[in-house]
């Protein structure tokens, strides 16, 4: 057979570029296909308006100046679910997004584009909890450690700096009697700075003479991790280490990697030989022209995310397996926030407010193996108001909390109450909660039988948390409220998010069930997976990206040894 390339990777999000860089360094020729646009590249000066070039393989075309133009700093322009640059959809924002069906309501926070959802992630890069891996996953925790270390050094990951909101978080956690933990490998509850994939601020950041012109090396504490970070003198020195600015430039520098945006893979091509079924390539669609094509490769790596990877498997009619798309975990988020009097803040911080828009979006965390995560966060006001006041499925005004509940407000807030609470925006400290939710085969990605878009039957997402998940989440909410109370909050708000906000989408093509311990599909040789879908479970609650990147590093090594040594 004639091959177009050694390896095709589907998806340039959190995992795909990691595999590309690792394989490229070994001299294996890679084509990385991405459904969305490429921001900050001279070959696509207007990535949302015109098709631009077909592909690029040269790091010289990366442009920080263009990235600054494309990332406009405005939250609706960047993160609008329907028309934002970071939406799940076609590069042309005049077209509707690619629709997914969530029959319980809710929405899925994913981004297409080179960098994928790391374009908007907080860059929180904790490891999994060892107790969620050891004697549970098909591989032990110690197997992951060297790969964690490699990714942490490559991104790189460092402990986050404190601004007012982090200082207040740590003050409260200490007052509530919790311990400071100084480890990556968390085995007991406690608080710590976030291990973030963000370059540390320059040492002279507090010098009033330091002008912020966008070219500073390191984080400038501007609070735009989620709305698109473009701070840095070059793309590869951009402060927040989305794969767009970390692994993609490294991959291009190997000289063996070509990246092709605006290319949606609709089918995995296979052949049967004496060893059984094997992947031989992909069928793709140019999202601008609609033109279809086939590409052949010695190996194919699916890294399209926990929704599109199982969708692609199902739409490709690959062999039946009762675990395709099954076992979805999503950390069932919640938010708990506290409002403070100026006087209390002056006493603790020497400042009259806590300014949630200053500092890295999330720079402090509290880990509780067995329950999940509480992490501090602060956002620009449109996103802030949505997280705190609109994600529940019940109104506070139609059902106030019971007196014994440790919060004053619970659920969706509207009307005069919403306006009054938003007036307190500069004096609000917020916590985001991630539940250690359990794998359940009923929680699944399937494809619709009748509804289709230009790429085939659309995905349908079903998720219902268990009673145990609910108990864990409630315990985390009580701990968060206690911390805020000890800190001196005058009013506590629990968002009580519905289970249908999907941001950490994991474990739908699990190791041991769909792929082997090398992340090669059990039923299709030469087909690998390198995204959140191969995670065996929800890691105990920690943010999944680092673990996916560690596994992607390991997968690249195993794949190269098996097929290219």
């Amino acid at each position, binding site marked *: 057979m004639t091959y177009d390339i050694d390896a095709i990777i589907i998806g340039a999000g959190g995992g795909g570029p990691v595999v590309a860089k690792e394989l490229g360094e070994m001299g294996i020729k890679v084509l990385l296909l991405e459904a969305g646009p490429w921001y900050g590249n001279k070959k696509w000066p207007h990535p949302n*308006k015109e098709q631009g070039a077909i592909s690029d393989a040269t790091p010289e075309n990366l442009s920080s100046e263009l990235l600054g133009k494309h990332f406009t700093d*405005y939250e609706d322009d960047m993160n609008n679910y329907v028309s934002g640059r970071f939406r799940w959809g076609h590069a042309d924002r005049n077209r*509707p997004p690619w*629709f997914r069906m969530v029959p319980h309501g809710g929405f899925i926070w994913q981004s297409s584009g080179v960098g994928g959802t790391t374009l908007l992630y907080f860059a929180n890069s904790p490891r999994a909890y060892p107790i969620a891996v050891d004697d549970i996953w098909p591989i032990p925790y110690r197997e992951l450690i060297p790969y964690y270390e490699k990714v942490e050094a490559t991104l790189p990951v460092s402990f986050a700096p404190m601004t007012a909101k982090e200082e207040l978080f740590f003050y409260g956690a200490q007052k509530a009697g919790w311990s400071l933990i*100084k480890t990556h490998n968390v085995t007991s509850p406690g608080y*710590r700075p976030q291990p973030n994939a963000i370059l540390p601020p320059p040492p002279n950041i507090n010098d009033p003479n330091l002008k912020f012109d966008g070219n500073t090396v390191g984080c400038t504490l501007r609070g735009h991790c989620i709305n698109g970070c473009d701070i840095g003198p070059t793309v590869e020195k951009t402060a927040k280490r989305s794969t767009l600015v970390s692994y993609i430039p490294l991959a291009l520098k190997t000289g063996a990697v070509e990246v092709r945006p605006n290319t949606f893979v609709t089918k995995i091509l296979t052949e049967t030989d004496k060893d059984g079924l094997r992947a031989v390539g992909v069928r793709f669609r140019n999202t601008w022209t609609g033109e279809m094509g086939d590409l052949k490769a010695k190996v194919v790596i699916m890294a399209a995310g926990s929704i599109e990877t199982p969708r692609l498997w199902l739409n490709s009619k690959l062999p039946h397996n009762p675990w395709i798309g099954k076992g979805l975990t999503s950390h069932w988020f919640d938010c708990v926030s506290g409002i403070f009097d100026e006087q209390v803040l002056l006493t603790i911080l020497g400042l009259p407010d806590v300014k949630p828009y200053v500092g890295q979006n999330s720079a402090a965390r509290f880990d509780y193996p067995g329950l999940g995560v509480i992490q501090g966060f602060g956002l620009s006001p449109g*996103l802030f108001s949505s997280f705190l006041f609109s994600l529940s499925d019940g109104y506070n005004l139609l059902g106030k909390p019971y007196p014994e509940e440790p919060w004053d407000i619970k659920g969706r807030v509207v009307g005069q109450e919403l306006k009054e609470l938003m*007036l307190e925006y500069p004096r609000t400290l917020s916590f985001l909660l991630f539940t250690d939710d359990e794998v359940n085969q009923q929680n699944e990605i399937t494809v619709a039988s009748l509804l289709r878009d*230009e790429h085939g039957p659309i995905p349908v997402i079903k998720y219902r948390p268990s009673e145990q998940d609910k108990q864990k989440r409630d315990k985390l909410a009580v701990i968060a409220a206690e911390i805020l109370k000890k800190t001196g909050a005058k009013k506590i708000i629990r968002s009580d998010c519905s289970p249908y906000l999907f941001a950490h989408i994991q474990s739908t093509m699990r190791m041991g069930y769909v792929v082997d311990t090398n992340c090669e599909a059990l039923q299709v040789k030469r087909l690998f997976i390198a995204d959140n879908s191969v995670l065996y479970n929800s890691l105990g609650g920690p943010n999944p990206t680092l673990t996916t990147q560690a596994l992607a590093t390991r997968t690249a090594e195993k794949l190269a040894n098996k097929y290219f040594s």
Partner: protein
Amino acid sequence: MNFLQLIVDILKFLFQGNNSLPQTKAAFKSLAGSIVPNTPALTEQDTYSIEALNLHTDEYQIWILNHYVSLKLILGNSNIYLANATAGMLNVAARQLITAGRNKQLISPTVLHEEGPFAALEATDRCRTITLLEQLQADLASLPFPFRNNPGIVLALISIITMLATNGYYSEWSGYGSTRLEPPDRRKIEHFPASWKQIGYPGPSNGYHALRGYLFNQFTE
């Protein structure tokens, strides 16, 4: 429902397109106004009385709903314009609330006639209407296409409409002024959003001299 009725419904739905009917505009004005209402000044801040309607948040909701879904129909990919249908759903549910006597405040017969049942309700009763839909207690068979007898689509839409108002009002969107309904790449910020002034957000910045140190210098492992 018979097949012929379904075809008629689909044709009616497609014919309406993205032109908002008068009752659609009224329903979204009342929805946005319930979420971020006009309020008498509680503080001396002169911006406090600004509300969603001053910032055209209702237009934001309609724009989003008309650009939200695209599916492959017989003739290729088509936009599914949902604003009219969503307003229709709110009105059917509001009428049910009124018929069942579950609204707590009296309604205005004039508004009911001119703007529809949802707009005629008081703000808290509009929340009760949304709850009726959210708990699937409304008569789904009476809802307009594509919501009729389709709880998945009802929940998918109803779960986001509050967020549409908070996003529209508290983000920069109102600052696009006269370009606010243009395609995203043609919008220009014309003024500082009144909602940001209201809550004390200074707008995007390139950085802050705000470092307060580090909790510790290195991890132990």
